[in-house]
């Protein structure tokens, strides 16, 4: 069902135009990469603070009040441009194993953000200058740093068709994980 919907989505006029455009697609993709440098880059600096690795002289709440608006701005641009890239070729991305790994990790990163803000950051006054930060904050920083690093790596690898469904034969696991619909033998 999702496959059928995405097949339709990919056949819409703007999707086709976007994929075939000479300048717009590269510009969107470049904006995506540069907004990643802003979002992931500034998030990583905050993660270093949460892990107690660096920025020990800066209060944790400075990161979440003064730097976070920039991080959020980068996130918004990154998501919008990412959705546009997906829209340009939805079926291909949907069945790409790296895209799927990336989406799973984005759920992990998202849950981590939610847990951090609802359980750990709401008591930031207790540990704003604590060195090292409490264990829960260090774990949240580590999960964030690791998951965003892998998201960047998998995101880059989406561009390669090693495991694409139209490139058979593939190991059974790959076809299963990519949701490939193979013709009955």
């Amino acid at each position, binding site marked *: 069902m999702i496959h059928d919907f995405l097949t339709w989505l990919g056949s819409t006029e703007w999707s086709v135009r976007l994929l075939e455009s000479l300048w717009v697609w*590269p510009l969107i*993709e*470049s904006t995506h*990469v*540069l907004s*990643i*440098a*802003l979002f*992931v*880059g*500034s*998030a*990583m*600096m905050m993660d*270093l603070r949460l892990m107690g690795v*660096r*920025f*020990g*002289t*800066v*209060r944790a709440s*400075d*990161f979440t009040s*003064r*730097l976070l608006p*920039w991080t959020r701005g980068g996130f918004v641009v990154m998501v919008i441009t990412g959705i546009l890239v997906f829209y340009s070729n939805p079926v291909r991305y949907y069945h790409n194993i790296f895209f799927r790994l990336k989406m799973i990790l984005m759920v992990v990163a998202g849950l981590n953000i939610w847990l951090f803000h609802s359980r750990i950051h709401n008591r930031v006054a207790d540990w704003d200058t604590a060195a090292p930060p409490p264990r829960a904050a260090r774990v949240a920083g580590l999960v964030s740093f690791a998951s*965003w*690093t892998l998201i*960047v*790596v998998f995101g*880059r*690898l989406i*561009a*390669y068709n*090693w495991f694409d469904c139209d490139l058979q034969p593939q190991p059974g696991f790959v076809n299963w994980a990519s949701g490939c619909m193979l013709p009955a033998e």
Partner: protein
Amino acid sequence: MLLPFFEWCEATTLGRVVRESLWMFPVIEAIHLVGLCVLGGSLLVVDFRLLGTGLKDSTIADLDRQARPWMLLGVAVMLSTGVPLFLSEAIKCYYNTAFWVKILTLPVALLFTLLVKERFARTATETSTSSRWVGATDLLLWFVVAAGGRWIGFS
């Protein structure tokens, strides 16, 4: 005139190994991108502060001192992954305008960051007209390097 040099680069063992491997270029490129995030983040926190936004409760000198090791790590990762990427497709790069924009801006950005910005930030505390100039110049230079780098793959 420089073409023979680029041909030599492409013929190096490292260039050949990366070019002939199915996965090395993509994996090195992915690490290059993670390095971009580390470098970008560590440059941005200081540049934002120089511009008068971001982590304003800290002095410029303190933020710069905190960010510096990660900035240097980011530069090291970028250069050590960027060189093999370049060697694997040196001749393509020679005919690529985006590559020339990037490679000519890169030493300017590096020298500006390491000599001008670091020297300025070491003793600066609060935002001033000159700190804004330093921050804006640094951001602009690295923006050109990053955008040019991404565009190498499109042209």
